[in-house]
């Protein structure tokens, strides 16, 4: 198992380097650069000086190699947009996204898995149909519409703030009050992210349970006198988790790198918005840093899911054994 996880770790590092390199090179190759927006206000000589100051006048290979050298030292360069180290920008924004992503993952898991077990363990019934219908609706609604609908709901009811991560007064408050303020701002973006994920988990879990209950060992456990619910929970569910856990890796990665729409609509200051601003301004080092973060979280998510899978299912461990 150790070797297996080590191999996955190597893959993760490769993914980060490839994704960030590709982002940097593609951003560099697209027409224009960060000075384009100011081009009409600067004379050509001033713009050339600015490009030279930013190192954009160097050949592409030289820029890339110098950046790659920095990446080897875990230094992703300096943002051209904010004149700050990319690492520090990523650090503060990744933490914000992490708060959102972890909460969304917990909520999605808490909703998706139990309902998936419920709907998958029943062959018919109103409850099963209702759960399936709601899941399909949640899966069909694009994140933008879902986010806007939740924001609209919050605005109409006045129950919750419609955007932001904290209120202006929150920063001056005590830790407890700050946490309370943060908690009041979280439901909208968390639900916007969690509901489609919960629906995905419910569908996947439901299908996995349906398959697992047909396994002979579940029938055997029922024959030994175990009740239906106990047989599902103790025998069918652990086996069904294999396919569900496999998806968690991708979900974690997509939560970190793909929450962009939700972050923009709910004004959540996370990685998605940072990436969007960087792309708009053609800040190639920041784009590459954001891509690296997304790839890192995707790889880390996959790695964690693999590890959990190996722990949960002895067959995985036995397949990977030398």
């Amino acid at each position, binding site marked *: 198992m150790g070797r297996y996880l080590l191999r996955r770790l190597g893959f993760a590092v490769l993914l980060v380097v490839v994704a960030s390199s590709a982002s940097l090179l593609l951003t560099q190759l697209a027409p224009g650069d960060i000075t*384009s927006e100011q081009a009409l206000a*600067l004379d050509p000589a001033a713009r050339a000086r600015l490009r030279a100051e930013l190192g954009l006048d160097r050949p592409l290979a030289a820029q890339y190699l110098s950046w790659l050298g920095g990446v080897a030292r875990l230094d992703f360069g300096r943002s051209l947009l*904010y004149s700050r180290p990319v690492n520090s920008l990523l650090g503060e924004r990744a933490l914000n996204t992490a708060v959102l992503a972890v909460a969304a993952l917990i909520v999605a898991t808490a909703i998706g898995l139990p309902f998936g077990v419920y709907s998958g363990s029943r062959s018919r019934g109103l409850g099963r149909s209702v759960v399936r219908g709601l899941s399909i609706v949640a899966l069909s609604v694009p994140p933008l519409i879902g986010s*806007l609908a939740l924001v609209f709901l919050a*605005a109409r009811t*006045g129950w919750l703030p419609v955007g932001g991560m904290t209120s*202006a007064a929150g920063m001056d408050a005590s830790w407890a009050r700050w946490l309370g303020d943060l908690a009041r701002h979280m439901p909208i973006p968390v639900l916007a992210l969690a509901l489609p994920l919960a629906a995905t988990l419910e569908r996947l879990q439901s299908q996995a349970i349906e398959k697992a209950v047909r396994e002979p060992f579940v029938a055997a456990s029922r024959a030994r006198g175990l009740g239906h619910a106990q047989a599902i929970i103790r025998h069918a569910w652990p086996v069904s988790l294999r396919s569900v856990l496999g998806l968690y890796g991708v979900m974690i990665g997509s939560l970190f790198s793909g929450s962009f729409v939700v972050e923009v609509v709910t*004004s959540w200051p996370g990685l998605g*918005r940072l990436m969007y601003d960087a792309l*708009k301004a053609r800040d190639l080092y920041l784009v590459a840093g954001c891509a690296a973060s997304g790839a890192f979280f995707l790889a880390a998510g996959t790695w964690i899911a693999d590890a959990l899978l190996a722990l949960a299912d002895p067959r995985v461990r036995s397949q990977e054994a030398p």
Partner: protein
Amino acid sequence: MGWRWWSGQQQPADSGTEIVFSDVSTRGGVLTSSLRSEPRTFNRWVNRDFATDLISQLTQSKLVRVNRATQDVEPALAETWTVSPDNRTFTLTLREAAWSDGTPFTSADVLFSFQAIYDPKANSVLASSLLVGGRPLAVTAPDTRTVVITYPGAFGPGIAMLDNLTLAPKHKLEAALAAGTFPQAWGVATPLTELVSLGPFVLTRYEPGQRVIFDRNPRYWKKDAAGGALPYLDQLVLEVVPDQNAELVRLQSGQIDMLQQQVRPEDIATLRPLVDQGKLQLLELGVSTDPDLFFFNLRPAKWASDPRGSWMSRKEFRQAISHGVDREAFANTVFLGAGVPIWGPVTPGNQKWFSPNLTRYGFSLDKAKALLAGLGLANRDADEWLEDEQGTEARFTLLTYRGNSSLERGSAVLREYLRPLGIAVDVVAIEQGALIERMLKGDFDAIAFFFSSSNLDPAMSADFWLSSGSGHIWNIGQATPATAWEKQIDDLMHQMMASVDHAERKRLFDQVQNIFAENLPALYFVAPRMYISASARVGSISPTILRPQVLWAADTITVRTPASTGQGGR
């Protein structure tokens, strides 16, 4: 220009009148507004993005200010001034004032500001706006409260040009300029205690991605009419809300007091119920002075080997397009009726310089078709498009900004208008940087675009009018005028810029506009009407059509507290 209630009970004010909404003079309170994008730096001298400019307007002051509502020049840190008989030398007496850290403001700061802006190493974006005929102003300081500024030549806008000068604190930025690190100074990571203010507010907190918070500057030099200290507000909060729909929802729910930018025409109906309930104000500011424009590439090199050049670079082709567009219908489709037809770059919103007597190309498909036929364009095959005598199809690619709804809609509508004429338009929306890059390289057929102006005097946007200008976008930076009519405009603009007699300047500029209308290097169809919205608790605002529409005069804004209005507020 002015504003009126959405109910229409009050009409827009006449030119040159500043109307202040509400006479509330409540002191204190917090005003919360929105900001669509974050500041990239706090250094206005090297960056011109909207957020950086707005922060600079809130925290810094100028020697003189052009009142955005009346367009009159007002004293600011220059308390008084005299002008030499040749109108080239201005002697300014500075007000006694201090930076927010207590350091006195003196003429040394003014000298330093010019030094920094003109220093090539600083790469200041303000430099080009402080040149006369391409040459810098000469600045001396006989004593700590006197500054003498000599223009290299007579310049029509006169001292109004100094409205472009953001004053820099010598005691804070001198070392950076000397070290060649001025462009990096006052970045967003700079400790806020290092930033000093001469304006109504002091930047006290920046939460990246969330908000920028300003407290009132207790050392602000300006007083109200009664001699009371300004600003009235205790605090101003700008919440970063990148999405326009979310911004609107926040306004509706009372979580922000006003939008930073104008209300989209499609949002007016959404806000109307809250206006009727007295919770929001919806104010019409007048006609925008920054209309969308549409222009062809007029660089001779572009068409030298392109068979379409024989007709596409001709003015008759552009005149035919102008005849082919029903501007009223264009306004209804693109701006939902909230727009007025225009025939040139200067809109009725710019009342001092607008010329109502320009050549107008009324909607007429017959006239348009006749002009196209005169160019040898006819439908010579079975499809719906025209061809020239060599069989080249009347087709061009129109580039525009991706994400700018009025430009994207306008481009699509234009394509549909030109279809009955037999002209095919391929609309391509690309991102802003790429568009500007292609514009600078001349790698385009036609572009739908917009400019944002901060000053309505055409002499201050000479780059657009002069053939040598970097804003002469249809053929940028010509060494000598490529056409006779561009030379005519150059000559008239030089005369106009050198004259200090407003009537004469207006007469000359009317001629410029007529030549422009005859040759149509850029086509204009509709100028949108502009609206802003604010909570009913916001008072004493004097909004204008120029950005920032409300916060340009943030020092006199007041807010009612919940107790005095009986409303919940935030």
